[in-house]
């Protein structure tokens, strides 16, 4: 396989194909998506929470106690964490690769 094809091939393996979500029954798809999303979100949280300063943690706590919508939570992190998008993408990709490795074993 040429380098170019190899790269394309790698990029083709999106998270849905890797996890076989598109082959699952619809009800399982939904469940899997929510679980994967939840894990990515928690992984992201584990990365970003320690990056917050004390006062920012206080702000976040107040926000979370107000039972906000998820997009308000994301707003908060987009504001406070300069590379928040990168962290999300890293965690999503990391998870995909881990699963790919595990499912081949």
């Amino acid at each position, binding site marked *: 396989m040429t*380098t*170019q094809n190899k*790269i*394309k091939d*790698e*990029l*083709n393996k*999106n*998270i*849905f194909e890797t*996890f076989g*979500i*598109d*082959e*699952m029954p*619809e009800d*399982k*798809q*939904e*469940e*899997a*998506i*929510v*679980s994967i*999303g*939840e*894990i990515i*979100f*928690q992984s992201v*949280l*584990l*990365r970003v*929470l*320690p*990056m917050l300063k004390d006062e920012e*943690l206080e702000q976040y*706590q107040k926000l*979370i*106690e107000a*039972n906000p919508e*998820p*997009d308000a*939570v*994301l707003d908060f992190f*987009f504001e406070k964490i*300069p*590379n*928040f*998008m*990168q*962290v*999300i*993408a*890293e*965690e*999503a*990709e990391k998870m995909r690769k*881990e*699963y790919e490795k595990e*499912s081949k074993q």
Partner: protein
Amino acid sequence: MESMETLATLKKQLSAEKETLAGLEKKQGMLDEDLRNIKKTLDSIGAEAASAAPETRTKTLEDFLNQKKEYLVKRAKELPPKAKEVFEKTRELWKNLDNKPGGKVVKRAAALGLIGVPMVIAAAMGYIPTEQIVGKLASRAVLSTGLNAVITSNLSTKFFDKIQGDQETGGWRKYLTAENIMSGLGIGTVTFLSGGIAGAIGVGGFVGKKILNKFFDRAIEIGENVEFWKRMKTIVNFGLTTSVAVGTLAVATAHAETESHDTPHIKEPAKPEHSATETTSVETKSDSENNLGNLQARLMGKIFGTSPSEGYQTLEPQPGQTELSQTEKEIPAERDKMRENLNKTTEEKITQTQPARTEVNPNAIVTSEAGHNSVSGVLKIQFQNDHNLARAWGFDIERLNDDKYMAQTLHDKLQETGVIGTGEHAGQELRIMEANKVSFEASVDEHGNHIIIEKNLETGQMEIHHKGDGFETSDQREPYENRGDTRTHHYNNGKEIVEQKETEQPTEADRGGERMFQRYQEEQWYGRHHVGPEKGEPGLHYHHQHPTNETGLYLQGHEPHDQPDTHNTQAKTHDTAVEKEYVLTETQNDKIDELEKSLKNLANLKQPGGHIELNKQASDFMSTPMFSNDPMNQRWNMPQNTEGKLFNFMQKIQKITEEEPIEQNLLNPRGQTILEYIRGTFEKYAAEPDIWKKLIRLKF
């Protein structure tokens, strides 16, 4: 009597054989039945096996997710107390979403948004194959998932509005830059890249562009959500056109993949104890379709709507990124450390990855615009849009929008490269004389020196202004002030002649990012032999040019493109080898134009009644680089097709000239189209009478 006995014996034998045969047939029947049974059994086993496969896969996934959850719980315990507390509260919030009205949909949309980040970025850059996108869009089964949901939902709201809002200031690049894409994929920096290689690998997007455009066009024709599809088309085209960015992404991905074998992403999770998974119930499709898109729009709007400075800062240096991945336990000082690293290593990276001295980074080209008639004005925009470059030139990126600071700093820095005069030429500046004809690009050469690349977009001629170059002297040099945009300049034996010229006033639509984008698209698509749209179809008007470096870019001196015919001139650049250039005679030019017209006419099909219809496939074939055009290649050998005819004609030319088409490869990111090859070869061999005669006698 004897014969009677013989007959009876034979009858007995016959009867016995009949019995045997019947027995055998019976056995055969039984065997057949056995066989059928066995087959049936096998089939049922097979069916069972087949039906079990998805379950097995689902089970594997469930196990994996459980392991991950266990691992995350364990990791959460290691957080500092306050962070741990809010982590738990956030988990509760997520869990309790199920109890809120519409909460399940919100949860699913949030999940999709998070999962979709790398995909959407890759798709926007053309890296999820377009045929796959189209295929998946048609598949109802996956409409609710991932990219398809993103694409089919009303995600335009914030995502595209944000981008469109910045269009006039060229702000797209703030979002769709190699840096953002790389960081979006979590890939990090790529210090080993060279522009040529990156661009070459990225070229795969071009074929996709054709296919995808057809898809978008169909969607637009259907008339539903037209604005959305138009925007989608534009943005994806931009992504696909930005070959350097895509290529950078591609190489970066390869790099990341290599790294991933060595990088311990995560500790081995503890063996699962099969704790109950948090169950999530299923919303009806209509609910999800109604609500999913809106939330996803917001999520993606946030993802892409980061501020320019955020966009830049997502270009995290590899060391910082590795550290993030590997030492997640040591996170407390992570952000500050990362920010420190960011500045330091980005500077280092810039020095290492700057294009070679004569290489142009098309991602950074700023085309002269009406209203940006001073070079410093154009370069100012470039620096404001490209923070890497601004840093490399020593600008304080926090002050890029500070007019006073920029004016003074630009003045000082551009004096170094002779763009702004010093001494007796103080107060003078190189000017852009005519809108959309000349581009100026600030860059850094392989030694870290500041350079300004001036490119005539009509002729492809380039001039590089280096640090230490003197200010070019000319009686007609423009004072360093805004003098409008109505002059054109020519060069005659190295002297510039400036003359007043009536130029069409640009419309508002010509201004800003859209125009830059269009110009850039044209340059990318039609390559180095670019001719501005004012002169007819781009890409098909050649001057005889000489590749002078490994990137496949062509360097020329300031030769007048309107030199009289039959006049040989000396090509010159500031620091490149001098080569002779043959200028086509008027007759030769006419012949080539005529040939090209005939070739293009091959794509016109005469319909009954005299109506001419464009054969889109043939037309696409002509304008697609040959070596990006693999899916069409099988048509090359079909002489009855336009493609076949063109290919045969090209082969004949090749036989005469032994001129190989320019193939896209690692050093040349863009292959020639068949028309470019034909025209280019004719022009090249116009200077050789014997070959020229053979060429013009060719029939197709």
